[in-house]
């Protein structure tokens, strides 16, 4: 069938700068560049371009410009180019539209309608360059009360404590599975976690055996509906276990890792035969209620001798506060809430763009509800889904989170340019691919360095913001909504967020 689709991007070459070195031909996995028959000219088929910018960055002569295709249909604010293209694509292929990364729809970004406070005159700000500033975060259940015994100079905690994770900054890497991302990308996340003193979540693709000893102590291993790679050793080598109920990019549905991505190594880690689809059912078929969830939480605690906190990850949906309350009562130590901006390697576009609620609203609602019920200390809350910068981290924590997960931001640090073609498995940056020739483009050591730099940069910025507010520990910021003010928000929005308007 003749495709009626317009191109997405156009490639311009500055001819006097091009010396026909052929780097672009090698770098582009999409087939935009090719040599002519006698290898004298490089031909460009820009209709195949996805805008990943790999060729632009790697062209040694800076001879390439890739920009959105400027031709358009008759301008129409309702029937946009995107809408028209989607209809044409489905008319040609007859299937569910797939897409990668988090939603790019222009819904209101609440983070951008919240401003932070700073100290002036009446209480002093703190200079983080001179004074200690505590970002260390403990994740897990806290006791109802703490009994201590003081013997001479020694203070001893008498209360039996629940297992907690310790991270040096309130930023952890979100679940991204080996299978969705390349081994090198997965390894980079693990190495960076170890070096910086934070943790990474394995996603549901298992943890390769050769990584368990070294990176198990900084891994949060996932137990999702497909139970891929879940064995007693996997559970016991980790720092914590995460039951994945849902994710922000596709709440309520399962996942399909296509058979062509299930290579020998992936099949060994997931413990399924090579080449079969790795299907994660939409629900866990042993969890149809809060009581059933409780049963799995305690099954995992039993399987790990009550030594590890158990996380439960859900997508932020309409009744998130009531659901979260049930999850805490079911015995979870940490709740991860993934907002509708949450990323993905592959999701039906319709789910990604139309299901869920913003993370800012979800965190505020959950924190409020758990406080009202007097059970906020029973669990920690991790906010996830669309955290873009250190200010988002600070705002999420002030709204009630203990820490955040970052996924997309981490991948961008590794090279991702948000072209949204993750589901094709042809990632030009070696991140979302199992093609060995593409995967080797990402050096795990260099990747880890970029990630550590990012964590360091954000942590410094967080200290600056805290100091400005006159706070010297991240603990004191949690749920501290007095430090937030809304701008351009309506009354109901301020109410849900639990914050005042600017000037109030």
């Amino acid at each position, binding site marked *: 069938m003749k495709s009626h689709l317009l191109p997405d991007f156009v490639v311009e070459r500055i001819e006097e700068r091009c010396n026909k070195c052929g780097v672009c031909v090698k770098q582009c996995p999409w087939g935009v560049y090719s040599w002519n028959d006698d290898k004298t000219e490089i031909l460009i088929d820009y209709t195949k371009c996805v805008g990943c910018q790999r060729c632009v960055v790697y062209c040694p002569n800076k001879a390439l410009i890739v920009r959105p295709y400027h031709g358009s249909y008759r301008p129409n604010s309702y029937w946009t180019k995107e809408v028209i293209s989607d209809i044409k694509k489905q008319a040609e292929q007859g299937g569910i539209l797939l897409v990668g990364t988090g939603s790019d729809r222009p819904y209101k970004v609440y983070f951008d309608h919240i401003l932070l406070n700073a100290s002036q005159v009446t209480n002093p700000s703190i200079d983080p360059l001179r004074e200690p500033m505590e970002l260390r975060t403990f994740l897990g259940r806290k006791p109802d009360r703490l009994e201590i015994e003081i013997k001479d100079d020694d203070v001893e905690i008498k209360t039996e404590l629940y297992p907690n994770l310790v991270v040096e900054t309130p930023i952890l890497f979100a679940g991204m599975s080996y299978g969705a991302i390349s081994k090198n990308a997965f390894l980079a996340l693990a190495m960076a976690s170890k070096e910086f003193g934070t943790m990474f979540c394995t996603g549901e693709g298992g943890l390769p055996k050769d990584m368990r000893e070294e990176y198990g102590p900084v891994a949060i291993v996932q137990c999702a509906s497909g139970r891929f790679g*879940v064995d*007693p050793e996997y559970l016991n080598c980790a720092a914590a276990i995460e039951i994945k109920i849902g994710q922000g990019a596709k709440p309520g549905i399962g996942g399909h890792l296509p058979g062509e991505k299930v290579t020998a190594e992936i099949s060994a880690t997931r*413990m*399924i035969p090579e080449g079969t689809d790795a299907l994660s059912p939409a629900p866990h078929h042993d969890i149809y209620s809060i009581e059933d969830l409780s049963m799995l939480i305690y099954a995992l605690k039993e*399987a790990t001798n009550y030594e590890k906190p158990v996380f439960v990850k859900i997508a932020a949906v309409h009744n998130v506060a009531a659901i979260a309350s049930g999850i805490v009562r079911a015995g979870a130590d940490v709740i991860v809430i993934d907002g509708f901006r949450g990323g993905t390697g592959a999701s039906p576009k319709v789910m990604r763009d139309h299901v869920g609620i913003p993370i800012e609203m979800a965190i505020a609602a959950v924190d409020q509800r758990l406080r009202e019920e007097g059970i906020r200390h029973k669990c920690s809350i991790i906010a996830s889904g669309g955290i873009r910068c250190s200010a988002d981290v600070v705002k999420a924590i002030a709204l009630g989170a203990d820490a955040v997960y970052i996924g997309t931001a981490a991948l961008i640090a590794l090279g991702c340019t948000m072209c949204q073609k993750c589901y094709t498995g042809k990632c030009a940056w070696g991140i979302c691919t199992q093609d060995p020739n593409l995967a080797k483009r990402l050096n795990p050591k260099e990747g880890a360095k970029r990630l550590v730099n990012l964590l360091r940069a954000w942590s410094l910025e967080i200290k600056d913001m805290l100091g400005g507010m006159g706070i010297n520990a991240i603990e004191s910021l949690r749920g501290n909504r007095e430090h937030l003010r809304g701008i351009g928000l309506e009354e109901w929005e301020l109410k849900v967020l639990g914050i005042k308007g600017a000037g109030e």
Partner: protein
Amino acid sequence: MRFVDSFLEGVRPVEELLKYAKIDDGVAEIDARELKHKELNDLMRECVVRGARKLILRNVCGQRYIGTRLYFNPGVKVEIVIYGTPGNDLGAFLAGHRIVVYGNAQDGVGNTMDSGEIIVHGRAGDVVAMAMRGGKIFIRDSVGYRTAIHMKEYMERVPVLVVGGSAQDFLGEYMAGGRVVLLGLNLKNGKHKSHYIGTGMHGGIIYLRGSVESYQLGKEVGIVEMEQEDWKFLEGVVEEFCGHFGKEINVDKDEILGGKFMKLVPVTKRPYGKIYAY
């Protein structure tokens, strides 16, 4: 609303629980009558740490996760004999142990089981062998709904579930590997009643002794001819089945193997490969 953690509240320290156990020459006998879920599992672990390799549990009544806590590195293999009715998730994540139940079992037998063996002299509830990836489960009578969902296999690790009777709906849904055998010994007319058998199945084999109509099958499974290796496999597991239960229910291997068997396999390894637009 008061926060109730029914699972952890009132759990006594293990030193206090030792009075319920008698350890003698590697065999521990535990009276579970007054023990909460976690107390029983704490005590079982303590007995193994103290050298017991066989645990005999009496008066078991609904205690969950029996066998789950016994993961040790390096591997220790324990035999657990249960009298009574073990609770949900019997042998969940089981790591190589052998569990024999004289009585019925509840839901979630062998949930995400890794290796080992579970033998139930009775029936079992729902979600038996969910996501099981190794070892064997023998159930003398029938099982409930959602049996063997997402059972899977890898290389030489092929889990096996043998059920003497039949199963209810959603048998083998999303099954990705392993072998499930329903012997249909308690069927009156030889007809299994389960619906939606093998929906989304993309690996493994289901053997049914007796018959099902095609409308009872999910769209992703097909019926194929039995081959020599299928009979060889069945001979082996039926012999084991009869070894466990033959005398109790008065059946022998030849009688069972003389019945009519159906073999169900997935039509494709990629049932949902064609529902997307790229």
